[in-house]
């Protein structure tokens, strides 16, 4: 499913074009506004094997800015922020394919162009020996770790752009 382009906010947004692993592209607009991860909450989502969202809990709906109806059926890369280098997700799908758990710090994009940081964990849903989907849980991250990773991700992103 190809996501529609974002609508440009009134002012103060940066424009970027994201190309996803399924080959589709989308124009996004981002702002410098960070939305704090709410204390005590967990964001929970499930996807099918193709990464299409099949479950979104209330915290996911609230923090993403999308309605539940918009999220269900959408690809999980609807959250992808252009500041996230591809290499930060390296190993995600390989790890899940090995029926193992993946962790990572991720800057996520909200519907309105603002962002939020999470510590994400993804696990394969194994039923009767078969992987039938994936569960992703995002929790409030360590700000120390986020601060350490911001320049690292920036460098990786610059290297990726230089290589294209």
């Amino acid at each position: 499913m190809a996501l529609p382009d974002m609508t440009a906010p009134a002012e103060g947004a940066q424009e970027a074009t994201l190309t996803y692993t399924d080959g589709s592209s989308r124009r996004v607009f981002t702002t410098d506004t960070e939305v704090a991860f709410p204390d005590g909450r967990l964001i929970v989502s499930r996807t099918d094997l193709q990464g299409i969202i099949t479950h979104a809990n209330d915290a996911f709906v609230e923090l993403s800015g999308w309605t539940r109806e918009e999220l269900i059926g959408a690809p999980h890369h609807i959250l992808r922020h252009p500041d996230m280098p591809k290499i930060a997700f390296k190993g995600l799908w390989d790890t899940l394919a090995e029926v193992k758990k993946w962790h990572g710090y991720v800057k996520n994009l909200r519907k309105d162009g603002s962002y939020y940081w999470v510590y994400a964990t993804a696990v394969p849903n194994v039923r009767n020996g078969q992987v039938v989907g994936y569960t992703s849980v995002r929790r409030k991250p360590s700000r120390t770790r986020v601060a350490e990773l911001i320049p690292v991700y920036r460098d990786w992103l610059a290297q990726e752009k230089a290589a294209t």
Partner: protein
Amino acid sequence: MKLNFLVAPDFAPERFAGWHMLNTVLQRRSGIHLHLLTPADATEQTQLLAQQQVDLIYANPFDATDMIQSQGFVPFARPRQHYDEMVISTAAGNGLLKVEDLKPGCRIAITPNKDVKLIGLRLLEPADLNDTLIEWVPVESYQAAARLVIKGEVQAAFFLADAYASLTRLTRNQLQVLMESRISDISHVVLAHPRMDAELPRISEALLGMGSQPSDAAVLDALGLARGFESMSREDADFMIDLMDTLLD
């Protein structure tokens, strides 16, 4: 025929009568003799399970995961809209206002409840605290945990939210909540041993029917589970198990 019904030892003391009331109603409606087991602590629960004496169990989610995966217990019910949340509390007026005020080496009182520790550790991650950076002070009850906090012998304590809410007003007035989870996806689970396959439909019908008769409200109020119980499928349980798995590290 007599079946043993074990209730995990993490309910507040004032709920004790409620479990006996529920047991009586379930016996009457199912026609099955149920013997209620209320182990004093997690160790006694483990011993009873090891002796293969448990046919039905109201288990905390952490234990339920192991019983489903390792021992073949069958999930069939859970409290309706009643979730296992936890509270991190400190003493009122001690200057600690948020979890980030807790520093490496801090002392935290903790009961043997594994779910509470697991969720609490995840809530402390924003403070850059992990298992090895905390000096754990084991206690046997939430009342004991509260006493240590109030006396200033620990900086904080982990509580099951239900247990925190059941502390006396006098105690809670001397405490302050630093953080409370609002996960809404993790709950206790009612499980049946696979050997009671034949009896399960009658027990399940009786439990899920709680709330259908006027007299049930008193029982459910006594349990602190006012909305009664709802059906839980194996897929529901597997979903919760996957979620718990993401919280392990």
